[in-house]
């Protein structure tokens, strides 16, 4: 298992490398640049700006410069971590040296910030919202699916699946404003928009306000709006998968040897039925943790999601690269977790 995980992580570097190359090629292939504006700038000014960010260099050189900053650790005397060349990993070395590694570069549209700043301040908010939303999704979705499957074709099944269909067909863009209208504007129970935590965060993503009601009341509506949508997917998948498993021979065997119905469902049926559910949970987690554009927009949450969209419309190249690589990283890591969970759920699956 250990070897397998190491192998996967080595693969990850290769995957990220390939993705970075494709993204780089694609974003430069799109017409328009970061300094194309409605108020046309004189070509000399654009030339100055491009020189400043090395955009006047040939593409291959720009790409190598980028890879060098992101992947290669640099040691230098200058140790001012507040400067724009700061890195995600910065370690003071003996002898007044300073090691920098993973520097995603500056943002062209927010000139006093770097991509690392965006990761440090916006990504944690998305992770917080993502974890809470997924908790909501699993808590609602899993029991709903199990009940519907076990009580197939009864009123419970019908009810559960109605809730699921409602969840699937009610997008956040509609549910969000309705929730805001009811609980934020009319009843005034919850703040309509905003987020109850701000940087700095403990251990990268834990809000310092986690113990306060102020944090949680900001999370309720968005987490519910996101969670119900995903819970519907989970519920339907759980139901379908469990129905299939329940008719397997080994379930009949388990019943035949006299196990109680509870043990049969939890230990044998559900555990096997979860494999497809876990498979979609991986990418779902990666997607939710790295930010959700619509819910952030509707609820005014300062997360990472909007950067996936605005960086492209702004042609903010370092932010595009950073966001894509970060998402790819989350995706690969969550798939490794999925693989590990497979082995735990089904002892027949082994990677060695």
């Amino acid at each position: 298992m250990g070897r397998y995980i190491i192998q996967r992580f080595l693969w990850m570097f290769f995957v990220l490398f390939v993705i970075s190359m494709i993204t780089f090629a694609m974003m430069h292939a799109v017409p328009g640049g970061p300094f194309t504006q409605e108020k046309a700038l004189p070509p000399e000014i654009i030339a100055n700006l491009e020189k400043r960010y090395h955009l006047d260099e040939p593409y291959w050189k720009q790409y190598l410069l980028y890879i060098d900053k992101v992947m290669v650790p640099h040691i230098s005397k200058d140790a001012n971590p507040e400067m724009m060349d700061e890195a995600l990993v910065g370690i003071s070395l003996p002898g007044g040296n300073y090691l920098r590694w993973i520097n995603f570069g500056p943002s062209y549209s927010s000139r006093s910030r770097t991509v690392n700043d965006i990761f440090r301040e916006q990504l944690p908010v998305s992770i917080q919202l993502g974890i809470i939303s997924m908790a909501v999704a699993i808590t609602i979705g899993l029991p709903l699916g199990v009940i519907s499957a076990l009580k197939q074709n009864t009123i419970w099944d019908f009810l559960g699946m109605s809730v699921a269909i409602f969840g699937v067909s009610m997008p956040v863009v509609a549910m969000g404003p309705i929730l805001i209208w009811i609980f934020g504007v009319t009843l005034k129970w919850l703040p309509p928009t905003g987020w109850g935590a701000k940087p700095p965060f403990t251990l990268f993503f834990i809000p310092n306000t986690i113990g306060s009601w102020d944090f949680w009341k900001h999370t309720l509506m968005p987490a519910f709006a996101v969670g119900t949508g995903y819970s519907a997917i989970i519920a339907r998948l759980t139901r379908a998968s469990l129905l299939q498993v329940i008719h397997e021979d080994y379930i009949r065997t388990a019943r035949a040897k006299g196990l109680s119905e509870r043990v049969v469902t939890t230990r044998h049926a559900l555990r096997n039925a979860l494999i497809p559910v876990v498979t979609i949970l991986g990418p779902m987690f990666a997607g939710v943790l790295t930010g959700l554009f619509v819910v952030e927009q509707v609820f005014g949450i300062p997360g990472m999601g909007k950067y996936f969209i605005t960086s492209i419309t702004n042609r903010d190249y370092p932010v595009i690269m950073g966001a894509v690589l970060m998402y790819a990283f989350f995706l690969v890591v969550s798939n490794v977790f999925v693989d590990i969970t497979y082995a735990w759920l089904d002892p027949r699956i082994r990677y060695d």
Partner: protein
Amino acid sequence: MYSKKWTVILGALMVVSMLLSACATPTPEEVIIEVTKIVEGETVVEQVVVTATPEPPAAEMRDNVLHVSFGPGDVPTLDPSLGTDTSSIQVVEEITVGLVRLHEETLAIEPGMAESWDLSDDGKTYTFHLREGIPWVRWNGSAVEEVLDADGNVRYVTAHDFEYGTKRTVNPETGSGYAYVLGMTMAGVEDYLYAENWDELSDEEKAELRDGVGVKALDDYTLEMTFLTEAAYNLNISGMWVARAEPQWLIEEKGDRWSEPGFNQGYGPYALKEWVHDSTMTIVANPFWPGIESVPQPVIKEVQFSMLDASAAFAEYEAGNMEVAGVPSADIDRVKADPTLSEELIIAPDGCAYYYGFNTEKAPVDNVHMRRALSYAVDRLDLVENVTKGGQEPAQWFCRPGMAGCPTMETHPDLGIKSSADKAKEELALYMEEMGYADVSEIPEVQLMHNTSEGHKQIAEAIAEMWHETLGIQPTVTNQEWKVYLKTIRSEDVPAVWRLGWCLDYPDANNFTREVFAKGGSGNPEVGGLNWLNEDFEQIVLDAAVEPDPVKRTQMYADAEQILVYEDAAVLPIYWYTMVNVTKPYVNRTYSNHGHDYYEKWSLELEK
């Protein structure tokens, strides 16, 4: 019978009240009042000692904090040299003050950091006399404090800071998006800003170019600015954010980071307190700002800007958490019908114009009659009332009325293009005759392109329908993503009709008619755009820039606009923007005509 009862009750009340007054510590004030009673038919006046009713619990007070919305997305920068968007400039306007300031309602030029100024005989050089004793300030985490130098002395804003800031804007290495405004107007800037082979120049050569820039501190409080020509708008430009004092000591230490919270230093009526990126920004009243006639000391202690989507901001407003918000276009009808909200609604002019440009080299709009026909056929009133619905003003020309030098509907009611189906048909007939067409189906297809957006699409479709109905011409409407679109309309393949907007940088006709449509402007670039050059137009806008008499000057711009939208009909003006805002009734505010608000002139009624 009844009266006796009352006497008893009153007596009892008196006893109780006296007892209470005896017990109460500290003793509330006793008041002697006269009570008129009717005892068995006779009126008796008694003197009663009662204690004053205890003060009602103090009325609930609001926080002296104003909450306004900025629209979604982070504020790009607080660096005066780099700001190009409304949000950035709004905050820069509050944490720094220009040499001169524009009154937000009258647009008159008022003293800012310069107490007074002299103009040289040739009209090109201004000598500004700066206010003394205005300190640089910063937020230290708990309060606004003065910035001290290495020796512990307070740093005051000097002419050297202005010289440094202005020269930093036009330094080619800064890469300022708005430096070109100074390039067009200030002496010596062009050679420096657009220097060729910059990288190959020696340090001495670079310094020489920098010294050539027409801004110079004569002493700590005297600043000289030299412009290329004598012009009415030079003073306006000296007050713009691109020519602010900047803290050299901080910028040299922190680089581009200097404007971030924690480092940021300013000297305006407000100071930057907090900036939660992508979420909120808070500015706090600067107690060291002395308060001058044009820029008083702030009354509102803090202003918090939220970076929210229009609907989210409006929900916050309705929930009572925000004092000022824009109204999303989907809610405008509801707000107008709501008895409370309609009282709080203000539709105010905004310094922007929305227009279509013609590629005057592309058939069929290479013919002036065709262009006029299309322009006349757009029913602008119908469009703003039924499509955009934001109270926009139908535009007969481009230059936004209200800006210095722009004609207004009062002075020039018949200027430009007045929507008219009849005239549209007349012009179409002239075109067909000239071209020898017998039927509209022979006319080459008109392409109309806009950048991808629901709002632009609705407008384009409405206009396409108007053309179809009035002229029988059915254009093909296409759209492109914003930056691809900008590239397209500035290339050889400009579509026949394209859309753009323009918002003011400084409230003067020069910024509209000339800077957009003179050759090389945003809407009329060297390649693409209108593909249009009219020598008369070029000459008029050049002369108008330096015309001192305001009435004559306005007439000159009117003449230029007449060429632009009627005689050559290179541009199809559509509407002038408005701001649709709601404001809580407890806010005493001003309405700005130049795009940013001066919150130091606002106040809140704090009692709930």
